[in-house]
């Protein structure tokens, strides 16, 4: 029973790692050039600090997820993994919501601040960002499940004692 639980755990962590990795890759590779009124501008993720924060947070979580995949089952570092899980899940959630706020303004604009929506001029860029946000959202959900599971397994002494 502990073995299937461990296999399930590793599978979930691998899924979360691949979700955040794909979020990073899709966001970094999204750029589109648009011209209107003789002004050409290139829409990239570096134009917005929130999207940069999103890429940085997702890459940190990707590296962390990759390292945790190789942690042996009876190591004492699992307490540290629970703590890091909590902090990094918080980081991931805040970066996702920041990128979502910016993407919502880009798609619908803000009438009171005279901010025009830009998704009409750069639809491919907006679709890329949407895909990246969806991937990161899947990663967030999996990390929340993993966090609750880690807390449960830390409290359950059977899974940590060396059998």
């Amino acid at each position, binding site marked *: 029973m502990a073995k299937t639980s461990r296999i399930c755990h590793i599978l979930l962590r691998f899924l979360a790692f691949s979700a955040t990795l794909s979020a990073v890759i899709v966001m970094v590779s999204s750029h589109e050039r648009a011209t209107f009124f003789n002004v050409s501008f290139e829409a990239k993720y570096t134009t917005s600090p929130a999207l940069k924060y999103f890429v940085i947070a997702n890459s940190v979580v990707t590296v962390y997820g990759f390292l945790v995949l190789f942690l042996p089952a009876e190591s004492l570092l699992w307490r540290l993994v629970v703590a890091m899980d909590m902090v990094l899940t918080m980081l991931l959630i805040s970066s*996702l919501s920041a990128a979502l706020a910016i993407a919502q303004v880009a798609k619908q604009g803000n009438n009171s601040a005279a*901010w025009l929506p830009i998704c009409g001029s750069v639809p491919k860029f907006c679709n890329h960002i949407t895909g990246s946000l969806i991937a990161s959202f899947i990663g967030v959900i999996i990390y929340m499940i993993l966090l*609750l599971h880690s807390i449960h397994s830390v*409290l359950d002494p059977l899974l940590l004692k060396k059998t």
Partner: protein
Amino acid sequence: MASGNEEQKIESGSNVVPQTKPKKDWILLSLRVVTFFATVSATIVMSLNKQTKNFVVATIGTTPITVPLTAKFQHTPAFVYFVVANGIVSVHNLVMIAMDILGHKFHNRGLQLALIAVLDTMALALASSGDGAATAMAELGRNGNSHAKWNKICDNFEAYCNRGGGALIASFIGLILLLIVTVMSINKLLKLNRN
């Protein structure tokens, strides 16, 4: 006399059973109270955030036409979400404080504390997402985005931006304290489970 002594001994033996009352954790309770005040003040300050200013739009002859423009927090969906999220987190903190003060009648300590840990984690997620969205919009309002031709609004509405920034700072303090409180309550669970 000897039987009287024995009776006395038995009586005193049955009276001296120690009552294991769980020690009240004052540090956790006071941290929760401070977190509650931080999130409540963030909610209230952001929900009362409004500034009206007159702008000169055109001049007909010599008289300038002024248009009053208002900056409200409802204009930005991220700030609305910020207010809602901080409201829910402060209600959660209030419920936790009440449970801490009044909840010694529950006998199933394990389930109760596990529920506290799960609810604390969810409140942490909610608070951090509210903060992230509001920070992104506040940064956009302060610096604008030249690539997307979005002008900054903070040079015109100073008081609105400062009040929003104050609410954000209070919310961040609440978030950090909520993280500490979550870790402490999970630690309490660990200690209880080990005994």
